[in-house]
């Protein structure tokens, strides 16, 4: 692989040749002609970089980015020969492909507007296009602004040669950016006049007004849109206006863009409807919410029955701890903190959650850890055959006072 110039070397190069064409300053300059004459003479004539520009050798350490930029700026704007140099003598900038130089001065408009120091806005581009197909008016107009914005870049030497109307050398030999701008301005003015004259010849006054509406458009050409003024001027009756409206509406409805969007919207609507239908399946395989768990006498006093935890998610507890009465209740095995299933620790006589350490008494009342409220009870009833039925569809919360509900427990 060929050795690449490092950033430092590039900057060094720029600083040496920079008196003639500094890379930092080039963006601010008028675009040079590609077919420029040999720049060697100008480069030789260029003086050394300004003495106050720091170099790595003078500082004894690498330059910081700030210093490098300052140096580049000083070489570009500060050194008088750099700014005063003829544009044509400037060598084409090889390092910066972005700084494209337009080949001819009058066609300077569509370039990325180097004189403006920023890309052209859409409005400016349109204005450029409108003012007579490749006319140089915007460039001419923009030039003074650029000059005002970057006064430092404009040489004092050039100011003397700024006599307003003056004879310009032929286009190929223009070297001064000012001259170039002047040439562009004059050409543009000429072109504008020509265009105006042509327009005046070609169209009657009324149609001319309409033709001004015609803009170069990047969207689909809409038939009938280009000459509405002319037709409107010709026919003014209300009937034809209505007919015109329907005609336009039909045209809009039949346009590809409209059809595409309508199809898309319809597709979305159908998909949404299908999603909605999906939410209501034909068959719902939900387990029944009630279960018979056996006779009350099957449950031992002060005991937590864990038989139903794995499949049904509740404990059956028979205890006197809640209110002194010997009752049977079904506690849902879901922690009230974040929904983990707690474990029953018989040794400590408590439910303990493995996720964040919440603890509950055998009664389901929370007493440690972050759980904010007691475990929840399921509805329990006694069936006709004497067995206990647990109904998971109904819950009872202690903090809401629902544990006094007779459906939340049965007397043992």
């Amino acid at each position, binding site marked *: 692989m060929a050795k690449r110039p490092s950033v430092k070397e590039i900057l060094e190069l720029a600083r040496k040749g920079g008196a003639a064409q500094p890379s930092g300053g080039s963006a601010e300059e008028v675009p040079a002609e590609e077919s420029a004459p040999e720049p060697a003479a100008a480069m030789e004539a260029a003086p050394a970089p300004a003495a106050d520009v720091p170099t790595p050798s003078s500082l004894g350490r690498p330059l910081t980015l700030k210093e490098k930029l300052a140096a580049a700026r000083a070489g570009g704007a500060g050194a008088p020969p750099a700014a005063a140099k003829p544009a044509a003598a400037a060598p084409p900038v090889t390092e910066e492909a972005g700084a494209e130089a337009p080949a001819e001065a009058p066609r300077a408009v569509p370039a990325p507007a180097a004189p403006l120091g920023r890309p052209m806005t859409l409005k400016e581009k349109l204005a450029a296009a409108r003012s007579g197909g490749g006319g140089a008016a915007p460039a001419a107009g923009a030039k003074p602004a650029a000059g005002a914005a970057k006064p430092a870049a404009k040489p004092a030497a050039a100011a003397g040669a700024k006599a307003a109307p003056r004879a310009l050398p032929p286009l190929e030999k223009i070297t001064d950016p000012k001259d170039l701008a002047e040439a562009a301005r004059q050409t543009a003015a000429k072109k504008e006049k020509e265009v105006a004259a042509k327009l005046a010849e070609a169209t009657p006054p009324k149609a001319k007004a309409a033709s001004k509406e015609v803009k170069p458009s990047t969207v689909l050409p809409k038939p009938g849109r280009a000459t509405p003024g002319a037709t409107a001027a010709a026919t003014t009756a209300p009937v034809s206006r209505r007919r015109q409206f329907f005609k336009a509406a039909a045209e809009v409805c039949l346009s590809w863009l409209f059809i595409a969007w309508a199809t898309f919207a319809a597709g979305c609507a159908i998909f949404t409807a299908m999603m909605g239908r999906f939410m209501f399946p034909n068959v719902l395989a939900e387990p029944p919410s009630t279960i018979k768990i056996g006779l009350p006498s099957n449950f031992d006093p002060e005991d937590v029955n864990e038989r139903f935890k794995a499949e049904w998610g509740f404990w059956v507890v028979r205890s006197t701890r809640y209110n002194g009465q010997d009752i049977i209740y079904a506690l849902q*095995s879901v922690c009230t903190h974040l929904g*983990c299933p707690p474990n029953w620790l018989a040794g400590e006589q408590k439910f303990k959650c493995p996720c964040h350490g919440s603890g509950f008494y055998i009664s389901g009342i929370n007493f440690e850890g972050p759980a904010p409220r007691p475990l929840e009870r399921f509805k329990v009833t006694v069936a006709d055959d004497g067995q206990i039925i647990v109904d998971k569809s109904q819950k009872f919360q202690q903090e809401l006072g629902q544990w006094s509900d007779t459906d939340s427990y049965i007397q043992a």
Partner: protein
Amino acid sequence: MHHPDLTPGVMTGLAWYFLLASVLNAAAAAYIAYMELVSEGASRVGLAPKTRKLPNWLVGAFFALYGLAVLVILGRDLLPNATLIAYSLCALANVVVALTAGADAAHFAEAHDAGHGRGSEVHGPSLDDHQPAIGLGKPMNRTLWTLIWAIIAVMFQAMGITYALGGAAILPQFIRDGVDAVSGPTTFFVFSTIAFILMLMFRKIVSNGIVAWAGVNAVLVLFGLSMTDWDFRDIVTKPDNVPIVGMIILVGYFTWLSLRRAYINDSRMALGLPNLEEMEPEKTLTWPDLVYTELICMVALTIFLVVWGIALQAPLEQPASSTVAPNPSKAPWYFLGLQEMLVYFDPWMAGVVLPGLIIVGLMAIPYIDTNKAGNGYYTISQRKFAYITFQYGFLILWVVLIVLGTFLRGPNWNFFGPYEYWDLHKVIPLNNVNLSEIVWLQVLGLAKPENILKRESPGFLVVLAYFLLVPPLLAKIPMFKKMIAQGGWLRYFVLAGLILFMASLPIKMVLRWTLNLKYIIAIPEYFFNI
């Protein structure tokens, strides 16, 4: 239940572990003995060339011995006791490097004092001397520190040989019991916070390379000895937890590195010198330099992950069930800080509001921070508030909580000491009470009012006071006064709000530990608990 502290496998592992510790210290000794010690930002202008040279025979001997060891291991079917022979060869290489470095360091010092080196005469300051970074104090005594690391290398190697020959050195039981006895969520958290404060206060000492290396050695020996404990080993070597061990090392190293550079920069800028980043602008070309580096990193990391994935199997557990949770149930390691927060807050607070505020707060930093210093270089003294706040939030409230959740939380989310058996039936009394109960029942001796708002009025008062009174009070502190003058009141109040939310976690933790306070506002009826 009793598990054996040491098994043959563990002892083999420890032998190689201490071999690694020994070679690290031998390398440190050789580095200090032979290399140029020109620290960050120190100038080498005007220094005579060095006389210290790494002897070629030493390098050759070191790699030859290690190569021989590899050969012996490859031919273990032919040789009896091949592993032990290979181990001895490696140990010999380590000891040779350590001792040669020590002897050469002493010789170099003599030669330097006498003014003649090998071949050429050198007088005055030379690259032989340690050139410390500005702010980090005087040059170190190279001979002394070479000798110290060499001796430590030999000691580590001796420990390794002990394990290799079957000597069962274990961490004394009284140390384990003592550590278990003092460890708890309170002590762990408070100790971490104090360590953080000390690290910042004595950052000059911490930044010193010798101190840092001494710390590394302390960690090496503590970790190695702790591995002799079954419970510690069981937790640390779980495939789930291995990344956390790696994370501790990575976070520790990079925290130290940034601290050191920041301290050097601060010292330099105090003297009006350019900071390190200004002196060596790290600018390279994207192509090929950066892209190649990234490609190499990508390949290396992929290989590493593949090897890791083969060596440590994925820690899969039983099939998921809605009614049975593993005990303890742990979040992914990077969320263990959040899980620890959940112990102190409601899910909506610890799972939604606080994490959301972490993200929003981090995004808001560029809009709140008006301090333009510290752009592109490490500094602490120019950005004290930002540094301390961020590092406290990251190191203590995130990393330390991850470590706590990973290694010290056991079954039923109880706290276990590092050497404690994870007993499913460990009982820690945690009777928590709400603020309303403390105020109405214990202080006032009244019954709790029926009305929810009246019942929780003390909590509401405390929370409102916290959020409404603290910001104006904080605004009286000179640092915040300056901030308000620079950035305006709106910025200050956003900042104060974020800081108060951040501080709410340690405050709540301390309240839980000291007062057994469960919730300041407790309205379980509407699931609103703070």
